[in-house]
C-alpha cells in the first residue's frame, strides 16, 4: 500500500539514517549560529531557513511526501497559501499601526504626529 513496501527495505532504512544524520548536523548548526549572536532580523532569517530545511527533510523522507499523490500536494499547497495570508496580512497591519501603539499615559499626541500631513 506504500512505496516502501515494494522498494528495497534496507535502502529505505539507509535513507532514514542519512536524514537522521543531516538533522543532527543541522541542529548543531542552528545552535552554533545562535552563538554568533546575529542581529535579530538576520538571526531570524538564518534560524527559520535552517528550520525549514529540517522540516522539509522530515516531511519528504519520514512522512514520505516525496513521491506522494497529487491530491495531498494540492491540499498542502492550499493550506500554505492560506498560511501566507494569515502570516502576511495581520503582520503588515500590525507593523503599519505600530506608530499608533502607545500605552495609556505614554508620549503625548504631539510627539507622534499622524502618518501623513497633506491636507486640502
Amino acid at each position, binding site marked *: 500500500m506504500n512505496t516502501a513496501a515494494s522498494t528495497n527495505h534496507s535502502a529505505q532504512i539507509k535513507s532514514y539514517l542519512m536524514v537522521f544524520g543531516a538533522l543532527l548536523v543541522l541542529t548543531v548548526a542552528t545552535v552554533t549560529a545562535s552563538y554568533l549572536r546575529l542581529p535579530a532580523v538576520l538571526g531570524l532569517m538564518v534560524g527559520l531557513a535552517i528550520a525549514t530545511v529540517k522540516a522539509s527533510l522530515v516531511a519528504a523522507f519520514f512522512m514520505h511526501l516525496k513521491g506522494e499523490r497529487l491530491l495531498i500536494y494540492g491540499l*498542502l499547497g492550499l493550506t500554505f497559501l492560506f*498560511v501566507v495570508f494569515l502570516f502576511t496580512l495581520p503582520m503588515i497591519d500590525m507593523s503599519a499601526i505600530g506608530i499608533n501603539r502607545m500605552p495609556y499615559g505614554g508620549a503625548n499626541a504631539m510627539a507622534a504626529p499622524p502618518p501623513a500631513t497633506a491636507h486640502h
Partner: protein
Amino acid sequence: MNTHATTISGHNPEFATTGIPNGKLGIWLFLSSEVMLFATLFTSYIVFRTSAAAWPRGWDVLNVPLALVNTLVLISSSVTIVMAYAKTLERDQKGFRLFMGLTIALAFVFLGIKTFEYRSKFEHHHYPSSSIFYAVYFTTTGLHALHVIVGIIWNSWLWHAAAKEWDEWWFPGRIEYAGLYWHFVDIVWIFLFPALYLL
C-alpha cells in the same frame, strides 16, 4: 429499487476513489488544520515580538542546552517511529515493538525534561503572567507538550494493539498514520526551538 435498472460493478472494498486510503487522506487533512493552528501561533509570536518594547533573547532566560537535548530526543523519536513502520512492513513484530517502545520512551524523556524546565521557571517565579515573552513561551510549548501527550497515548495504544491486530491488513496503515502525526509534532518543535530559544 424495482424500476431502477442498475448494473452493479461489485463492492468497492477500499472506498478510495482517489486512490489514497481513507485514513491517509484523513490524517493529512487533520495535519493541514494543525498547520493552520500552529501558523496562527507563529503569527501571534511574530506580532508580539516585533511590537514588544523589550523581548529577551532566548539564551538569556531559557535553558538552551536542555532544549538542545530535547530537540535531539524528539528527532531521534522521529527516526525510531519511522523504523517501527519499516519493521511493520517487514512483518518483524519484535522490531516493531522495540522501535515503537523506544519512540514512547523518548517522548517520555522529552516530557520529563520539559517538566524540569517548567519547574525551574516556576521556582524563579516566571509564570505565563510574568511577561508577554513567558506567555508566548508557556502557551506554545504547552500546546506542543499536549500534542506530545496525545502522541504517547496513540503510540502506546498501537504498541498494545499489535499483539491482537498484527496480521490485520489495516495494521501497517495505522502505524503510518500515527507516524505522520508524530513527525508533525517533531516539525513543530523544529520551528519552536529556534524561535523561542535561539533568536
